[in-house]
């Protein structure tokens, strides 16, 4: 493979990996606090994509406003999912909340089929994001980049930096870290645990929505089941990176993005197995290091 092709694939992998990472963060944060796999998370991603589609293409709003509406709408949905499906089950056995999560996921997918119809819809990308930039250099050869390809990883990394700042430098972040170790003691410190959990869902959902929006720009269509596979893969990324760890989720997402893109780049005949690589990666990490790359401890994983 020529160097310029490699750079092309590298940037592509960076973008895909960053999106997996953004979604994975929502899984890992909720799991870190509640020991719950929020199966509805992939569907919040899908809703984010739909909301931006309706705002910008149906209602012709500018992209900036559309993105804000989509993130706000999906965040609200994430909060409702927690309030309705998970909070009543806080003191129930963990398996009940897990089943509730699966139920919510099916509900959101099928509700979307009813409301949005099952037909995939095309997303019209803003032209300035797609306008190719040619970079020529004697050592590289020619590289074609579109602004979107660079924007996705840059925004993702900035957001993750901001999130790490919230978790490690602010009071609600301190409460989040504390809840993930010991809920009862955290309450004794005067923390309203339900409010911090809601904040966690809000942050996770906003990130999923953002990922959904960027996904819809990269692969320009939306449909009700579009969240399932990215959701699964992001969950694998979270496990790979060490579930509960935010940097781990990003690293896991990037690793997955690179495995997927590079294996097809180097072995084009394997492209039919694209979706299988994630699961192979999952099996390998569970065999070799079940806590994931950055995971510190292993509690019941389902």
């Amino acid at each position, binding site marked *: 493979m020529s160097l310029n092709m490699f750079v092309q694939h590298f940037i592509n992998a960076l973008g895909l990996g960053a999106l997996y990472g953004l979604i994975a963060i929502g899984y890992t944060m909720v799991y870190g606090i509640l020991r719950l796999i929020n199966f509805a998370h992939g569907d919040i991603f899908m809703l984010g994509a739909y909301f931006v589609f309706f705002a910008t293409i149906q209602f012709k709003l500018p992209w900036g406003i559309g993105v804000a509406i989509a993130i706000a709408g999906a965040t609200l949905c994430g909060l409702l999912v927690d309030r309705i499906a998970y909070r009543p089950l806080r003191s129930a056995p963990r398996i009940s909340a897990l089943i509730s999560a699966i139920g919510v996921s099916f509900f959101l997918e099928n509700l979307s089929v009813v409301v949005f119809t099952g037909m995939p819809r095309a997303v019209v990308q803003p032209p300035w994001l797609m306008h190719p930039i040619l970079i020529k250099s004697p050592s590289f050869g020619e590289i074609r980049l579109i602004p979107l390809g660079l924007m996705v990883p840059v925004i993702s990394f900035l957001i993750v930096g901001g999130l790490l700042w919230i978790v490690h430098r602010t*009071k609600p972040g*301190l*409460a989040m*870290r*504390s809840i993930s*170790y*010991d809920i*009862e*003691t*955290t*309450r*004794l*410190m*005067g*923390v*309203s*645990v339900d409010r911090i959990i809601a904040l966690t869902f809000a942050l996770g959902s906003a990130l999923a929505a953002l990922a959904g929006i960027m996904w819809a720009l990269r692969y320009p269509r939306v449909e009700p089941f579009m969240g399932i596979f990215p959701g699964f893969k992001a969950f694998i990324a979270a496990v790979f990176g060490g579930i509960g760890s935010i940097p781990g989720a990003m690293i896991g997402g990037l690793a997955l993005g690179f495995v997927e893109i590079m294996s097809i780049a180097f072995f084009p005949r394997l492209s039919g197995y694209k979706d299988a690589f994630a699961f192979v990666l999952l099996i390998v990490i569970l065999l070799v290091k079940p806590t994931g790359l950055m995971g510190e401890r292993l509690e019941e994983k389902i």
Partner: protein
Amino acid sequence: MLDIQNLNIWYRGIHAVKGIDVSIDKGEIVTLIGANGAGKSSTIRAIAGLVRGFKGYIGYSRSQGKPVRLNGRQPEEMVKMGIALSPEGRRILPQLTAEENLRLGAYTRDDKEEIARDIDYVYDLFPRLKERRSQKGGTLSGGEQQMLAVGRALMSRPDLLMLDEPSLGLAPMLVGEVFDIIREINRQGKTILLVEQNAFAALKIAHKAYVLEVGTITIQGTGEELLQDPRVKDAYLGG
């Protein structure tokens, strides 16, 4: 300040506390002593809001005002009302640094400068914590963790400080040190409710004491009286 009447608590189907009355006046150190499973922890946890579905009356008045009924309130509300609990087994958050543990204790407060001052105050009380301030809680020794747990409870500026078994698992010398500091905190104006199995150490500093046996108060009096009481001597002070 705190008035408990006819408190009944059921814990995992067992009638753990059977109609006890306890009263705490402002400025006192009051101790509940008794063996494991006597109902001491259940009582203190009920006051802190961690136990659901108990019967009886728990009334609390912060200053001169009318007492408020505490039954059925959430633990986080209690903290705002000026009641802090340093729980049994210390419950330090192992992955947070010592200082983050203290900051968490001040969670209900927003007065940054005063919080910084209180952190310094805790470091004055427990100089060893200052050396360990940026170390993870889980790496501290048992004694240091206990000091951190007491300091953390102080960070909410409570009127009533409740300590559940602060001597648990500490070397005898450290027990003395911790109890000296508890007495010092009391002298500075905090009311203290102390639950202890180490009856001797607790009675020595307590103004008022209750002996709990299988959920009932069997003996009560001043700390001095109970130290001299032959029944207490026999059962709890090793004859």
